[in-house]
């Protein structure tokens, strides 16, 4: 029951091999993921979609090493992995600049170097001059950009994003798509982007992986066509999204 999805002509950044994850024991055990294999190419932008409860967040936790798979293996090949969530989860008592410094403090980066990197990262997410602000003074979209800067401060080249724009309004999300795409290119990142929004997945992904629910498995993978930057309201995206949505509906109705 394993669907192996290949990305040709790229070396793998993350190899997920036949993993399963069971929470709890005995009667109360929940199989979140069962026999999932995904290979993520270096520099690939992989979008992962699926209905809620299909194990998307669990998959990212396994890749980040926050949880261990029950069976199977996750190999990030020595790449450093950073992660972002739907909530920015910035430390409210620290300024924006100090928040971005936290992962560098963990990595024992010297103070002067930290300051320099903070300025660069703020520039990258277009928040130059905001380093003395506090998180609660910023809008949701700005907080997510600070969270992105903080994730990049980990010096990771694999970025895991768990519905990062799920709580934002459409206009902000649209602009952040452009921003994320630009940063992905500039920093040559490998991104695993989880969303339940199919259009968003098609807008951003090189490839869209579709997961089944309970237990989570890969049921299909769609390479996305179209020149970047794509427009979320373009016909091409609408058509591809429709195909994927149909497949997703089919999957959801199996649970009726």
């Amino acid at each position, binding site marked *: 029951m394993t669907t192996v999805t290949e990305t040709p002509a790229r070396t793998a950044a993350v190899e997920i091999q036949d993993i399963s994850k069971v929470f709890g024991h005995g009667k109360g055990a929940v199989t979140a993921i069962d026999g999932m294999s995904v290979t993520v190419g270096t520099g690939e932008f992989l979008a992962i979609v699926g209905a809620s409860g299909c194990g998307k967040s669990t998959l990212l936790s396994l890749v980040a090493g926050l949880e261990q798979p029950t069976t199977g293996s996750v190999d990030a090949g020595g790449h450093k992995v950073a992660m972002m969530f739907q909530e920015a989860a910035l430390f409210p008592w620290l300024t924006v600049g100090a928040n971005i410094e936290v992962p560098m403090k963990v990595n024992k980066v010297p103070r002067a170097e930290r300051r320099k990197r903070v300025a660069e990262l703020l520039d990258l997410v277009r928040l130059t001059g905001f380093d003395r602000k506090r998180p609660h*003074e910023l809008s949701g979209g700005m907080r997510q950009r600070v969270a992105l800067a903080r994730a990049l401060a980990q010096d990771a080249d694999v970025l895991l994003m768990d519905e990062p724009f799920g709580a934002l309004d459409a206009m902000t999300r649209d602009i952040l798509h452009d921003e994320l795409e630009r940063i992905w290119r500039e920093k040559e990142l490998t991104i695993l982007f989880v969303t339940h929004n199919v259009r968003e997945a098609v807008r951003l992904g090189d490839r869209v992986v579709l997961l089944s629910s309970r237990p989570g498995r890969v049921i299909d993978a769609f390479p996305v066509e179209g020149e970047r930057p794509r427009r979320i309201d373009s016909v091409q995206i609408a058509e591809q999204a429709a195909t994927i949505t149909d497949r997703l509906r089919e999957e959801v109705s199996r649970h009726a």
Partner: protein
Amino acid sequence: MPDTDVRDDRRRVRGLDALELQPRRGTGERSAAETAGRIWAATWPKLAAVALVLLAWQAVVWSGWRTEFVFPGPDRVLPTLFREITTPEFWEAVQVTMRRALTGFALALVVGVIIGIAVSQFKPLRVAIGSLITGLQTMPSIVWFPFAMLLYGISESAIMFVIVLGAAPSIAGGLTSGIDYVSPSLLRAGQVMGLRGVQRYTVLIIPAALPMFVTGLKQGWAFAWRSLMAGELLVIINQQNSIGWALSQARQLNDAERLLSYIIIVLVVGIVIDVFFNWADRALRRRWGITGS
């Protein structure tokens, strides 16, 4: 071409940020008159409350409920109070009492923090001690004095013992609930960034727990202050001057004016410290971005 694209992008992001940021209220310089107005608006209800209390007090005196000998009005107590606070004995008494309060509170702080950390770290300890802490908080501290005097004799240690028993549970409780209620999303963010060991505490857990810890400190102080006043009335050490001793002296000499003066002093000290804790609490909450005030 790509150059203008980049500039367009940047402008779009800037525009969005500008729209999303709420225009700040009252950023402009405040005039002196405005500042004075604000201070007056904050002060007059307090002055009115004081005036009201004095008036009610005076009214009771005028009603002839008790003779002025045992229940003098503010017209007699306030001059006594002002005379009293110009004497060196008064300041000596305040100094002794405040020194005891601060030492006792510091001891309670150390004990409370140690217990709080231990309880939040070891699950079995939590089950065993957790409800005990809550139980201790409901005990009237005066109950401990006979036992304290048995243990330490008539000494300052007896008072300290009761202060610690009164204040440490609140401090420990504030710390443990502060640590317990650190938001899971912050903990997860810390984990993802690789915060571990001591750094996890200094960078994440302690700052996150600070607002609740300060609430615990404030409550602990209230218990410490009450225990101390009870202690100074019960445990009189070699006639050493203190606020409690002055109170019992005044009663023995039937000096109602002095007695009421010292009661006012106790009230004022309590209010001053409470204002300080409220200020710290509010400053923290503002900095932490916890809204609601």
